[in-house]
């Protein structure tokens, strides 16, 4: 087959220029900054609070096409204390925008398509016969759902979950508008990187970036493990 040199050349050149070199620069920066310094940067209440917030809320958590900045200002306009929905929830004493609820809402918005898009094709492939067989054996609908459908959906759901988790941990655009960005309370990890960069504090920004990169890599590993596991179980993802 022709085109080996050309296609491999383009792929490796762009991969190196766009992906590998920049990430290498981050790792290099980390190495230069030193493990002790990295730890000192990360091991501050404000950084831990931000990392933990980014991670914890992601766990709970059209959006594919809608730009995140648009989603951010739209959600804020809706759920702010003087917004259409925010004024309603405020009457029962539940403030959404500028609290962790708001961040959670934005992350749910961002993560929504990942789970739907991975689970939907699998549901479409499940034959009605399987459910009928289960019913003829005397299973209730709930029983069928739990013991027949759920196990089939599990790998796809987990993949979608891990994908949306990876996306939500790193989400910036939609969150900063609705978060209010109060240190220790509603300040997410990516924002902390931006703040350090604006102060030209490249070492600290790199350290937090490395911590986030480590989280991303573990997510990626998790996704791959799930896919290998499910391929072994049912033969496709």
């Amino acid at each position, binding site marked *: 087959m022709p*085109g080996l040199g050309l*296609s491999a050349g383009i792929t490796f050149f*762009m991969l190196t220029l*766009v992906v590998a070199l920049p990430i290498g620069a981050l790792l290099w920066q980390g190495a230069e900054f030193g493990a002790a310094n990295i730890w000192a940067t990360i091991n501050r209440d404000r950084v831990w609070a931000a990392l933990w917030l980014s991670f914890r809320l992601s766990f709970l958590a059209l959006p594919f*096409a809608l*730009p995140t900045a648009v989603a951010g200002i739209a959600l804020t306009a809706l759920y702010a204390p003087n917004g259409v929905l925010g004024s309603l929830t405020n009457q029962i004493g539940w403030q959404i925008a500028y609290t962790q609820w708001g961040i959670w809402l934005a992350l749910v918005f961002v993560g929504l398509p990942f789970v739907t898009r991975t689970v939907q094709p699998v549901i479409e492939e499940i034959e009605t016969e399987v459910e009928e067989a289960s019913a003829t054996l005397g299973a209730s609908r709930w029983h069928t759902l739990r013991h027949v459908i759920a196990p089939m959906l599990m790998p796809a759901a987990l993949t979608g979950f891990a994908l949306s988790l990876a996306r939500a941990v*790193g989400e*910036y655009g939609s969150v900063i508008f609705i978060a209010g960005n109060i240190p220790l309370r509603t300040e997410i990890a990516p924002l902390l990187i931006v703040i350090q960069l604006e102060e030209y504090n490249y070492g600290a920004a790199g350290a937090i*970036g490395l911590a986030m990169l480590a989280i*991303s890599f573990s997510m990626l590993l998790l996704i791959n493990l799930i896919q290998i596991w499910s391929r072994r179980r049912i033969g496709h993802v």
Partner: protein
Amino acid sequence: MSDATLHKPATPARFRSATQESPAARWTLIAIAVGGLALLVGAPLVIVFVEALSRGWAAAVAGLASRDAQAAIRLTLLITAIAVPLNAVVGIAAAWFITKFDFRGKAFLITLIDLPFSISPVVAGLCIVLLFGANSALGGWLVASGYPIVFAVPGIVLATVFVTFPFVARELIPVMIEQGRTEEEAALTLGATGWRVFRTVTLPNIRWALLYGTLLCTARAMGEFGAVAVVSGKIRGQTATMPITIEMFYNEYLSVAAFSMAALLTGFALLTLLLKTALELRHADALSATRRH
């Protein structure tokens, strides 16, 4: 579900097929899904246009007519026009390399290509700043020789290419694996050159998947915020893209201008979504492999 209704025998209304929920359960679940979507997706979509038009058409148009807004729109279109074709070419090359040849470390290469999906855009921007920023060796030299990358258009292009890197390759690889290599091999034995094989055999097979990947890539490229926010420096009229300008207007309490810019960007997004849906409906078979990832 449609299968179940087709096979449903003519029975009294009380009778319920064994694979159907009770009406109460069904309607509760549908209500939860529709209600959730309405609050989370529908309402924000509507509010963008409502806020943009809150002072009437004239104000909304005026918000888009300022010099900063015009510059932002041009910049976003320019970035998209550079990043998307670039990624399409790279995506085709990567998919060709991965599906037409056998080599060790293929899984690793695919993981590398997918990497930008699981990296925070802000971290991506940070990586580019660290590599090309004025205080790195490479960046210092580039700035000194008059080609700054960070806080300039090339940096924004790099950041956009980074976050949209996997889209085209990811759509093409499953389709090209499914199609195999036999057609290309046949063309080669008939004496076609490599370029001709690609143009007349491969391209017609992958065109819809290519278009699909390109559309996803476009939607993301226009709306990218985190990575661009870090590398652009947010220089008004020069390196502020549409999403960045939305943030600027919003923080300056120029609500109508922010929301009319957001409405325009949403319009672009809805347009790509529309094209994408049309593709899914018309060419589902050519895209079938892509729906499984």
